[in-house]
């Protein structure tokens, strides 16, 4: 191969001691408190779900790395992140076998298919979730209330379904616990189908009552702040997402306060905060140009609110991020910065090399393993 002798990039020419592995490890660290809180909310079922989904991701990753069809190593922690995030987006009582399916699909279809770490077009965790959303629409909409008594000793019955079998009905189980079946609806579903809006402080901390929600948005924001402060994540994307979602929701709220909920509810319900901080910021699937990040984030925020309001689904973060992932190469192309010294009129005709954003670590620096190409010679020897 003819490797270029000199690599020319735009400033800053800083050598950072950051590798893919370091970044990924810190992301995992920052996810641990969130997972702990999730287990605290839902007990042993949530723990089992996290373990099974992550194990499925790791085993699938190992299979594809071993067969040489995918770049990367198991020790780069990226599959762990995929597994943890995927588990956090699934309902706590999601059947373990379905969780395993989601984990396998996430890595196989979301990552290995494109060549492994750094090559994936879509966020793998969301690919896995989208698959099970389409495959098991009933199970994925079945939430159970948090902070149930005895949650550390007893599984949610739907968790322990036999593989390929329908999970047990949680409504009957809740009734036995003297809880309304509707208590299991998420705040977004309650708003969409019943027009009930949850209180602000409950949403922010997820602590009070038996609300069926994911981990507290406030906690996720704190963990995200840590990542942003250590420059393991670009702060522009979450800010752009939340800003654009808030603006869209506020405009609609000002237009018709009866029909549309307040912007605060839109921001802190559902998975918007988790998606904004952890999923949309996936380095391989988001634009690297600073301007592009703003466009990308704004697109996600807008789409999320639009999907929540106008589609049949109560939650729209997942599809919004997947659509924006697909759009990010285009966003990158149209937001190429002008090289220093060139006027705006005299734009580069051809695409320059990507300018390096401080948060973005290229694959060369990460000493990532390139995929072993095992193509056959074009014509078999006669």
């Amino acid at each position: 191969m003819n490797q270029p002798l000199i690599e020319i990039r735009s400033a800053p020419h800083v050598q950072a001691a950051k590798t893919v592995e370091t970044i990924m490890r810190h992301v995992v660290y920052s996810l641990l408190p969130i997972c702990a809180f999730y287990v605290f909310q839902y007990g042993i079922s949530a723990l089992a779900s996290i373990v099974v989904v992550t194990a499925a991701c790791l085993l699938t990753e190992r299979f594809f790395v071993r067969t040489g069809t995918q770049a990367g190593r198991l020790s780069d922690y990226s599959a762990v992140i995929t597994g943890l995030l995927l588990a956090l987006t699934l309902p706590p009582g999601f059947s373990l076998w379905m969780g395993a399916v989601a984990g396998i699909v996430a890595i196989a279809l979301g990552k290995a298919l494109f060549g492994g770490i750094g090559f994936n077009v879509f966020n793998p965790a969301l690919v896995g979730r989208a698959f099970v959303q389409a495959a098991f629409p009933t199970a994925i909409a079945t939430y159970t209330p948090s902070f149930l008594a005895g949650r550390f000793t007893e599984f949610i019955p739907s968790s322990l379904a036999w593989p390929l079998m329908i999970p047990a009905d949680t409504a009957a189980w809740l009734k036995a616990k003297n809880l309304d079946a509707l208590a299991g609806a998420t705040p977004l579903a309650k708003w969409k189908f019943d027009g009930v809006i949850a209180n602000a402080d409950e949403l922010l901390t997820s602590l009070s009552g038996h609300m069926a929600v994911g981990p507290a948005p406030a906690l996720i924001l704190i963990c995200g702040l840590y990542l942003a402060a250590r420059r393991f994540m670009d702060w522009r994307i979450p800010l752009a997402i939340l800003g654009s979602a808030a603006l869209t929701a506020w405009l609609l709220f000002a237009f018709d306060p009866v029909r549309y909920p307040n912007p605060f509810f839109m921001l802190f319900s559902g998975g918007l905060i988790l998606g904004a901080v952890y999923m949309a910021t996936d380095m391989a699937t988001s634009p690297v140009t600073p301007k592009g990040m703003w466009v990308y984030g704004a697109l996600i925020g807008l789409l999320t609110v639009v999907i929540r309001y106008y589609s049949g689904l109560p939650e729209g973060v997942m599809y919004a991020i997947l659509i924006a992932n697909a759009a990010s190469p285009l966003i990158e192309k149209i937001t190429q910065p002008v090289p220093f010294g060139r006027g705006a009129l005299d734009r580069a005709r051809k695409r320059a090399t990507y300018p390096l954003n401080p948060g973005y670590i290229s694959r060369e620096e990460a000493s990532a393993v390139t995929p072993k190409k095992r193509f056959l010679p074009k014509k078999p020897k006669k």
Partner: protein
Amino acid sequence: MSAAAPQTWDEFMEGVWKQNPTFVMILGMCPTLAVTVSAVNAISMGLATLLVLIASCGLVSMMRKVTPKEVRIAVYIVIIATFVTAVDYAIQAISLALYDALGAFIQLIVVNCIILGRAEAHAAKNPPMPAMINAAGMGVGFTIGLLALGVVREILGAGTLFGITLFGAGFQPWVIMVLPPGGFFVLGGWLLLFSWMARRKQRALTVGSDHA
């Protein structure tokens, strides 16, 4: 392979295996993805296409000497459309439920490129007998392709095979498998399997000749 194998058998097997319309030539994708939600639908669609293929290739081949090249496509299309109409009536007479399940895709056999391709590439240049055998091979290959998709999608999407329950009452259907994306996933899986097999065979062949 032995050269002694009868020509007709080779002619037939070409469409079934070597030039399989679904897995090798990737032709006729529209019905392949649309109607294969169950094994019964898949096999009916395959048989309908098979009948149209054999009949129209036979007729095209019989008329090949009197068909001027300027109007050949028009002739082929008229012939194909005729047999599609006949098959359409036949399916209505056999079962209306099946007719509803296959929907517009019966009529759309007219534009299935496998059939026009066979008529143009083979039937127009060969006598009726080999033309029909070749067409039958293609049709059988197409049916096998559809059936491969239909079986997987029915087992996962409904827990049944040819309508027979496989896993008992508690089976959780994978709804995605009966939706259009499921068709793409299953087709992709089969293509992966076949190309992997073909590569292994190729590699064995290359390695073998290197040693020789």
